[in-house]
């Protein structure tokens, strides 16, 4: 039964030419356009170490663990230890991308917003996270200090990945492609919409007929969603293969994690679509409008049209970064590319899973309602 519904739903999705164009072809076309537009840029901007200033003061010396952490990523930063005034001047002249000042806590000063600034900030965030872990351990279990625990915590030379210098990949461009993948995943929402229309008695005649079958609604939903997810995975895989094999965009070599990100993101996209289409009572056209509009806004905020957007959101309205599935998707790729540890990556994936479960549950609750007020 499950397989029967699944196969036929997949057939319906694959034969819907409009849907296939938007979810399969459109991202590939867009990727090609991005590629053509950025190909000049990419030659100029190969990855180099990020110039960073650190203000050398008392407070810095009180935190040798920070200096250690900086030293642990020699290929990522080129550090200048200097005075506050000089750092200010270097930043003004564009000699450095930003400087770090220990002044009653860690402070970062930057002039522009961009990928490099985001990397510095992420580094600091990671550092703060690790050090607060340690203070918690110490305060809860002072004996641990004697056992040399803090050392082992800091002794994580690999905790920030050093991107090999001279790597061909342009770091600002890659984010456009990340958001493009995010968009492709979120376009799963259109297949999700199609599935809800096909099973809801008050949304389509076909749905009314499906409702007359002696089958539990949950079974139909799961089979239909699986079909939508499968198709979207085909679309996202095609895009990834095209990006990697044809356009030679470098995503690092963590294929497993990239696959995981794509699968989870696709499920988020599909469930987002089923959720939007099952909870509002508007017409199909309005629903499509809502889906297009929301995926545009989400991918815009994650940096698809303007790469600094991601950073702006991250600093100005951090909570939005976590609420925006598109951003979580781009950020997962981003974390894979720049970081060796997967803490940040898995935070994103966990949030995406959370959203999928939430959207899926809400869809079920909305669709399960069995008699309709009006057909």
């Amino acid at each position, binding site marked *: 039964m499950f397989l029967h519904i699944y196969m036929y739903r997949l057939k319906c999705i694959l*034969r819907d030419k409009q849907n296939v164009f938007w979810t399969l072809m459109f991202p590939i076309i867009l990727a090609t356009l991005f590629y053509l537009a950025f190909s000049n840029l990419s030659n100029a901007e190969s990855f180099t170490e990020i110039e960073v200033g650190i203000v050398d003061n008392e407070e810095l010396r009180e935190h040798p663990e920070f200096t250690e952490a900086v030293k642990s990523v020699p290929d990522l930063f080129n550090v200048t230890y200097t005075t506050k005034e000089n750092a200010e001047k270097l930043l003004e002249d564009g000699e450095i991308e930003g400087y770090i000042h220990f002044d009653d806590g860690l402070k970062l000063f930057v002039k522009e917003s961009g990928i490099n600034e985001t990397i510095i900030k992420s580094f600091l965030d990671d550092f703060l996270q690790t050090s607060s872990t340690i203070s918690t351990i110490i305060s809860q279990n002072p004996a641990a200090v004697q056992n040399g625990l803090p050392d082992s915590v800091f002794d994580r030379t690999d905790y920030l990945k050093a991107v090999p210098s001279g790597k061909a990949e342009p770091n600002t461009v890659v984010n456009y492609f990340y958001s493009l993948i995010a968009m492709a995943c979120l376009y799963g929402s259109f297949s999700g919409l199609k599935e809800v229309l096909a099973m809801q008695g008050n949304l389509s005649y*076909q749905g009314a007929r499906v409702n007359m079958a002696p089958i539990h609604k949950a079974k139909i939903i799961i089979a239909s969603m699986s079909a939508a997810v499968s198709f979207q995975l085909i679309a996202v895989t095609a895009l990834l293969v095209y990006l990697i094999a044809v356009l030679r965009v470098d995503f690092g070599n963590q294929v497993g994690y990239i696959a995981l990100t794509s699968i989870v993101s696709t499920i988020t996209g599909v469930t987002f679509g089923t959720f939007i289409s099952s909870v509002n009572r508007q017409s199909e056209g309005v629903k499509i409008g809502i889906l297009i509009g929301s995926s545009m806004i989400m991918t815009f905020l994650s940096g698809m049209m303007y790469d600094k957007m991601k950073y702006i959101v991250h600093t100005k309205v951090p909570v939005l970064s976590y609420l925006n599935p598109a951003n979580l998707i781009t950020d997962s790729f981003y974390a894979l590319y720049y970081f060796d540890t997967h803490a940040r990556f898995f935070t994103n994936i966990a949030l995406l899973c959370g959203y999928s479960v939430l959207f899926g549950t809400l869809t079920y609750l909305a669709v399960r309602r069995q008699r309709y007020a009006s057909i």
Partner: protein
Amino acid sequence: MIIKVNNLVKRYDDLIALDHFNLEVKEGEIFGLLGPNGSGKTTAINCILSLLKYDKGTIEVYGRPMAPDAYDIKRNIGIIMQNVAVFDELTVYENIDYFCGMYIKDKKKRRELVEEAIEFVELDSFRKFLPKKLSGGLLRRLNIACGIAHKPKLIILDEPTVAVDPQSRRKILEGIRKLNDDGATIVYTSHYMEEVEEICTRIAIMDKGKVIALGTKDELKGMINSGEKITVEILEHNPDILEGVRSLPNIVSAEFNDNMLVAKSRRGKNNLSALLEYLRSSQINVGRIYSEPPTLNDVFLEITGKELRDHA
């Protein structure tokens, strides 16, 4: 009793679509639900099927309360909705197979049933066609095949012949008879009285969400006062003739319509011969003569004071 509906009330906001609607369908009958557009036929069907919420009343199918999760009841129902409900992306064969597969798990059995359904609606040469490529009549036949392939014991058809060419209409009506002969109980809704008269063994006439009359077609016609409508071709238009005809004991009305005299009679015997006798004795030359027994339209007209359907 296959279906038993008791005092069903369904409102859409301020509009009362079903107003204490009652219905009983017995095993083996072709039950007709006849009523003008908007009288509540589709609403009644959708409530019976547990697709629609209703405000009051009880519905039993096969002696048990009908509910959305009454799967063992649903398994025995075939439904042909008033709107064609097939998937545009699937071919004729696939559509039938898809819906049939929701009832029948066994693949081999399903293949046989789908083949039988295709043969039944005579769509064999269209099996690979997408619905877009089918004419209105063929599409309706596909719609029917999707509803009956699993051989349900109760088949509900909601206006299955709307916008259908005469040939397809004939096939559909014959098909319904055949399904009934094979043992299925049929509920058939329509606003075409001729169809209902032709195939239904029992008929409920609906108006404004209520059943206003119920019985076999003869019983229904027996309920009213009107007798046959007599039409006589007369070449001379003499108003005296009308006066004379109207004065005949059992004649209710008489009018000229072009060169035809149209007279309506009350129920009774020998109305036609009395009229002809009068014309002959008045030495009026008559041409062709027709006598039509009362129709369900007359029944509807007499009970509600309006025509069953607008003269389109």
